[in-house]
């Protein structure tokens, strides 16, 4: 029987414009046992990265509010080429309307700032679980 992958076994791309927030996310992921993490400062670079090396990305963790290209615009463009790429949206908008809007664009899970490692783990487990369904 094929061994089930856990969320720690996947490769992650973190898209976040704020350096500190990016570092925090990387630390939390390390704390959770995730070892393969790549980073991009905005949506445009993330698109280039995915285009160039999609095999290095299993799951994308992306901030919503970013200059140049917002997380939502990045997602819309990503979906035209990779309709099934797992996507975890991070944002400060913690209300049901935003959740519904995000899910409408094919976000696989949604996490509100500020978040803890436990919350991040819960969301990553949901995304990983969905990938194996």
């Amino acid at each position, binding site marked *: 029987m094929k061994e089930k992958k856990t969320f720690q076994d996947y490769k992650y791309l973190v898209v976040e414009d704020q350096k500190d927030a990016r570092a925090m996310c990387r630390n939390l992921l390390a704390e959770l046992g995730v070892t393969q993490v790549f980073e991009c400062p905005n949506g445009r670079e993330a698109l280039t990265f995915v285009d160039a090396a999609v095999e290095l990305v299993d799951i994308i963790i992306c901030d919503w509010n970013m200059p140049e290209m917002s997380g939502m615009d990045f997602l819309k463009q990503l979906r035209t080429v990779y309709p099934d790429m797992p996507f975890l949206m991070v944002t*400060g*908008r*913690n*209300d*049901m*309307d935003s*959740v*519904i809007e995000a899910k409408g664009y094919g976000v696989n*899970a949604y996490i509100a700032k*500020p978040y*803890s490692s*436990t*919350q991040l*783990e*819960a*969301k990553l*487990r*949901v995304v990983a*679980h*969905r990938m194996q369904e």
Partner: protein
Amino acid sequence: MDISLVLLLNFFTMLLLVGFGLCGCYYRRQAAEITKMLSGSLEASGQGIVFFDNKGCLQRYNDYACRFFPPLADVQDNRLTYDDFINHMFDHSVPFDSVMESLIGALPQRAPDSSFREIIGWHDEQTGTQKYCLVEAQRTRHRRTVIIMTDISAGRAGAYDVERLADMNQTLSEAIDTTATGIIISNARSPLNPVIFVNNAFCDLAAMSREEVMGEGWSCLEDIFDDTQGLELLHAAISAGHAADLELQITKKSETCWFNIKLSNMNDACGAPKILVAVFTETTEFKNREARMFNVQKLESLGQLSAGVAHDFNNILSIIYGFASAGCKPDLPPERAGKYFERIAKAAKRGAGLTNKLMAFSRHKQVTSEVYDIAELIADQETLLRPLLGPSISLQMDIREQGLCVKTTSDTLSQILMNLVINARDAMEDTGGDLTIGINRVDSTYDIGGLPDAMKEQKLVRVFVKDQGCGIAPDVADKIFDPFFTTKETGKGTGLGLSVVYGLVNEIGGHIMVDTAAGKGACFSIYMPQSSAPPGKIIKGNGQDLSDIRFEGYTVLLAEDEDDLRELMTNLLEDRGMIVLPARDGNDALMLQEDYEEKIDLLLTDIAMPGLDGLRLGEMMHELRPDTPVIYMSGYPSKGGVNGAIDMPQGAVLLAKPLDDLQLVQEIHKALKPGQVNADYEVDASTARWTAGQQNSEGKR
């Protein structure tokens, strides 16, 4: 010739002469009688009749004819001729119009020497009115002329009345057609209530043609309304035949429009329904304006709120900054650093809670009313209201009764309370004191002056906000709900707060009153009808008898990896009225909660599960949904895991398997309604066992 023959002939001749003479006398008498009879009839006739002979000379006429043709009365020796008559008639003829035509039919071309019809008019001196007469001339076989004159004054007046009414009807119809208000009139005498009138405005708003509506029952309007509930109300009012005032939604060219519908009925003299009139007035613009005003006011309270929240935020930031600085010291023992980080995390969480509340308040959304337990709703607002008050004001909650339900939206009630609390705070700015928010039940037996009649017979809930401030002077007390009325200094308030409260209270079918006197504080009371429908979630039973208790509408997330046991518990919980989300393991439970958009009221989880165990799941739930209580279950000895003792979170509830169903129910009750469970009633878990579960959970270790 024989003399006797001559005598005989003479005798017969005489006899014949006498016979003829006698016959002549008889016939003459008969003729005279016929003539007399005819004259009598002529005089008795309701029409004027005049005969002219073949030379055009006047032969006979009746008295009635003199009324229409006065020269007849002065006639001597039948000297009046047919030509005189014609001349007189033409002098008095009146213009012929459509009304007369409808009355007597079209007139032939005038031709004085043959049959004709003409109308003459004259002023009747006796009655002082204008009279009209139809004159008809007919030639007889002997070239005589008979003139028949008929008084048509009454008929003509009647015809003009009919014409005037028709004209008025037309004018009214046109006027109703040009109004922007949709109007439908139906015949309430017929059981089908068919539409007998519809105006253009209605056809436009409903996008229906007149033909589609006329003669049809009210059901023909079904497709135009978006809101089936509103349509049901309309139907109910129509079938009950009473007046109604409704708000309905109609989508026109993909735009949602609001309409106010006023239904009124008119009864006949016996009191039976005659017609039903529905007037549709578009209120979309009004609604939009109201929404704009709502937003303006909301911004104002948001400003006030932000000031309060900023103060709280600074406190939180001080805590974070303080502990972070202290934590940076190089010689700090690791245990202490851990404690500092805990404090920092706690403060950050508090801050996140505050921003969530702020965002929930600033978001404008159209929410449909739901039935809420008012006590829960108000308790929920407490955290948001507290930061608004300065240190000199203490917020007291006076919840005298739980379980009182009202139909409202949480958003509306939140704004009402926010405004009343800000108002009370400002009133106590100088003095400080207690600000009390409370609720109590009001039965119809309470005599509350000033309540609308419709509310007097209803069971009500009173929500009050009481302050110990400066109170309201009697001369301004009746103005406080007016828009832009304020006693505050310029720049300190727009005066919209209380008027918005007034509007919102009306919107949820309530009534607001204030009890105040200058210098004696103020108590604002909002009376709302108690909802007879239970709230979406309700605990039935009082906690005394656990076997009967039901948790209607509460959602439980059940994580249990043993299939049989999961199924059994699902059945048990569903039998108690709960909505169960059954999860195969921890990860599955995480998935279910991620997709479930409603509130999860309880997590019931096994501890030992593959993939993600119950304890870690509980931890995650505590972070993801902090309001969801957790009950743990374990097949291992109390507080024990597979490899011995496990660390349970502080205050965690752990149930030992096999489960006792009454104990489970009691723990669920405690978790859903903390503080309301009778502490004396405790189930001995070691003796009362859940026998059904015992067998199924036998292999579970």
